[in-house]
């Protein structure tokens, strides 16, 4: 299939703005009469709040408002309604160093910071727990009252019969693994600007991955109708997961604006970014993998403790993903998973790039390698022997609607010269491989709902033959704005330059946001449908105009093409030129241009808007937690790495990486490459820094 716009290397629509400093991020925004907010964070890991005295701070000139839980109330929020355990401010106690206790709005940041230092808080310290095992011990003080033993969530699933399967295995490998807690480390710290106007409409500009989730949270916590809350994301300097849910600062800025009647700007310092975290958990896996001596994978038993930190955030999903996503990409008939997410008095962990699946995958791949070694099989051969194919279904009911896993493995094997190098590299050098697997968008929204996952509108301009795309999706650097521009351009047969994308605003529709790798697949479908709807409307008008069936017309390269003899469109051209007296670039040539045709459509209909919406079909099994891990499509990849190990210092240098991803159809090839390269670096850094932990526990 030949495409005009798709599968090319068109530069990003937002690249120039970013290259010149024109792009405006949240902290670049300002409004007149603006105040600046700052948050008082708990200095203690676990303590009761006995008293908060803001009286001195209120007297400081330039301070306009100070709020605590007393003013904010205690409506709980979080990511999943099943685990709403956060409040704007701590109500009765603080649960980690960084927990929000109070906030100030003042005429400038310096005054706000000074006021914070004048707020007196009396605490009564409680025992605090910095390790999952301490937090779970009998007699440990609960961090959240309704969670004994500090278990934030637990999951127990079994598919097939692992005990029976292990009894039939010829080889069983067991290992314990853990990683280091990571941080998202996006370059742009969170920042926001809230504006509550005199008509009671609240607008929040925020560096977020999901304007939709933030809008709902703000409306719920501040008790304002959703229709009076608008959330807009400006340019966002990376998210990677931690920015996919509302944070207290956003709620605080809104409340301060409501109370003061002035716009309020707030931002995190880098230290506050680390305190807020909501980034990758530390996982402690005990994994057992069994196979037959011919390499057939039989069973996986996975027990995992997640260090959740002080709040749930996305953790309710993470604890499922840490188990469920091991069911692919290898055929696995028996799988048992026991997962425990534990509260500790540390910054809360949440979703980050691969969300729960990444560390489990790293563990699994290592045990697969050990099995291969023991049975004398090439590690890639072992993977190929067990690899799933399109339409296979996992033991936990995930459907591989497409899966190029075999192709990925073969590509990296051949592209890296694996067979020649393996076992033949000089001392100090090594070659290894791993495969990976992830969702392309979660099958269900994070709150139980029949909501569409994405809606889109495409509006035809009254003049000029351009279209505007409206989507609430979040361009956070991954390239979604560019992707959707290209999809609309291709679908409508227009030039890329004639499509203007407007995104990241709740006024533009519903979109669950940029997380779980969902934007291209899910919002892409909605956008395509909207463009198709618009095209249909255009061709219907032209069909009536020319008395030709709409199926005999198409739009290509910004011209109308006719299956048969083109009709006489001289009237249309004459009218267009008459309506554009004074222009120098009148349409000419023997093809009917899109702008002329669009003009006629406008004159006939007035308003021409195409709409499209997408939600996945019902997916997954019927057991508890079945929805987590479902996806309308899965992506997979394989990597071969060649490294040099300095045996004296232990330092590892990555010499070469050969990587293959099944990303489905590449909309923009440059952008796909860009997305492939970076995860390397970060997974590598993670793996490297994991070494010390493995050594202490006894490397497997």
């Amino acid at each position, binding site marked *: 299939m030949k495409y005009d716009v798709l599968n090319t290397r068109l530069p990003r629509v937002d*690249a120039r703005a970013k*290259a010149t400093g024109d792009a405006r991020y949240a902290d670049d925004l300002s409004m007149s009469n603006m105040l600046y907010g700052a948050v008082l964070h708990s200095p203690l890991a676990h303590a009761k709040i006995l008293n908060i005295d803001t009286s001195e701070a209120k007297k400081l000139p330039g301070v306009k408002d100070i709020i605590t839980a007393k003013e904010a109330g205690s409506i709980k929020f979080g990511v999943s309604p099943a685990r709403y355990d956060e409040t704007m401010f701590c109500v009765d106690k603080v649960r980690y160093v960084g927990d929000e206790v109070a906030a100030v709005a003042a005429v400038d940041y310096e005054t706000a910071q000074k006021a914070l230092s004048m707020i007196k808080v009396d605490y009564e310290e409680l025992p605090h727990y910095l390790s999952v095992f301490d937090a779970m011990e009998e007699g440990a003080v609960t961090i959240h009252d309704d969670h004994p033993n500090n278990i934030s969530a637990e999951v127990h699933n079994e598919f097939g019969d692992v005990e029976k399967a292990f009894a039939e295995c010829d080889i069983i490998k067991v290992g314990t693994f853990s990683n280091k807690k990571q941080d998202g480390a996006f*370059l*742009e710290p969170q920042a926001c600007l809230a504006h509550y106007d005199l008509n009671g409409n609240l607008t929040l500009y925020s560096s977020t991955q999901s304007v939709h989730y933030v809008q709902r949270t703000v409306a719920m916590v501040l008790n304002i109708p959703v229709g009076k809350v608008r959330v807009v994301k400006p340019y966002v300097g*990376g998210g990677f997961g931690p920015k996919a849910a509302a944070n207290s600062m956003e709620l605080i800025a809104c409340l301060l604006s409501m109370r003061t009647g002035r716009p309020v700007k707030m931002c995190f310092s880098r230290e506050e970014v680390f305190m807020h975290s909501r980034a990758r958990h530390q996982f402690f896996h005990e994994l057992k993998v069994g196979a037959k001596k011919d390499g057939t994978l039989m069973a996986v038993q996975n027990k995992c403790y997640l260090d959740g930190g002080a709040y749930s955030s996305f953790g309710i999903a993470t604890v499922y993903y840490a188990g469920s996503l091991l069911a692919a990409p290898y055929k696995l008939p028996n799988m048992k998973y026991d997962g425990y997410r534990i509260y500790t008095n540390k910054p809360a962990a949440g979703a980050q790039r691969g969300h729960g699946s990444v560390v489990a995958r790293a563990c699994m791949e290592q045990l697969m390698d050990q099995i291969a070694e023991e049975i004398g099989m090439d590690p890639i051969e072992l993977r190929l022997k067990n690899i799933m194919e399109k339409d296979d279904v996992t033991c936990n009911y995930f459907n591989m609607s497409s899966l190029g896993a075999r192709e990925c493995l073969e590509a990296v094997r051949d592209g890296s010269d694996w067979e020649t190098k393996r076992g033949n590299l000089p001392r100090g050098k090594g070659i290894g491989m791993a495969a990976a697997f992830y969702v392309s968008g979660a099958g269900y929204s994070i709150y139980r709902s029949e909501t569409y996952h994405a809606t889109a509108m495409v509006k035809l301009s009254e003049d000029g033959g351009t279209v505007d795309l409206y989507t609430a999706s979040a361009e956070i650097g991954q390239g979604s704005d560019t992707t959707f521009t290209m999809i609309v351009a291709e679908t409508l047969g227009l030039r890329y330059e004639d499509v203007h994308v407007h995104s990241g605003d709740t006024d533009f529709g519903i979109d669950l946001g940029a997380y779980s790798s969902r934007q291209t697949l899910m919002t892409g479908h909605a956008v395509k449908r909207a463009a198709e709807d618009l095209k249909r409307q255009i061709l219907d008008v032209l069909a009536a105009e020319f008395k030709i069936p709409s199926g005999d017309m198409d739009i290509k390269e910004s011209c109308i093409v006719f299956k048969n003899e083109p009709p006489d469109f001289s009237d249309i051209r004459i009218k267009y030129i008459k309506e554009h007296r004074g222009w120098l670039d009148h349409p000419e040539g023997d093809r009917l241009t899109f702008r002329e045709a669009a003009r006629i459509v406008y004159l006939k209909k007035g308003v021409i808007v195409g709409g499209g919406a997408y939600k996945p079909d019902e997916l997954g099994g019927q057991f508890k937690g079945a929805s987590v891990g479902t996806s309308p499509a899965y992506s997979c990849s394989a990597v071969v790495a060649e490294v040099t190990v300095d045996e004296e210092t232990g330092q590892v240098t990555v010499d070469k990486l050969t990587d293959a991803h099944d990303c489905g159809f590449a909309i923009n090839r440059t952008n796909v490459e*860009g997305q492939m390269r*970076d995860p*390397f670096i970060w997974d590598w850094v993670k793996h490297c820094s994991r070494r010390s932990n493995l050594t202490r526990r006894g490397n497997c």
Partner: protein
Amino acid sequence: MKKLISLNVNGTDYEVAVLPNRTLTQVLREELDLMGTKEGCGIGDCGACTVIMDGRPVNSCLVLAVQASGSKIETIEGVAQGNKLHPVQEAFVNLGAIQCGFCTPGMILTAKHLLESNPHPTERDIREAMSGNLCRCTGYQKIVEAVQEAAAQIKS
């Protein structure tokens, strides 16, 4: 007490009254409304605040505005000539070296400075020269390629 300082920024002279504890980043952004210079960490670890000061790329978050009085500063806003992008900017745009864009102003300034002093850098020269600018999105490969492309374009 505020001090009156003079800065030449992107060829324009400015006189600003500033408190001693204001950084150059703050003055550029808040006094001169030049938002292209970002603050990612405030302690010189990320390079998002890079500006060229008297011919050297520096972390503007670690320069007091009062220290910069009398200096010639170039920010990202001064790189393009009118609406014509500098070859470094063109290369970044065309080769996919920009994703979220937050590191981009710093990267472009450092790269531009590198090519002015070393028009034919090796890959190693590029990586070393840009080692004070962090990127979380791209994995650096396309940035390095963009600098190489820019070098080739400037040469021809």
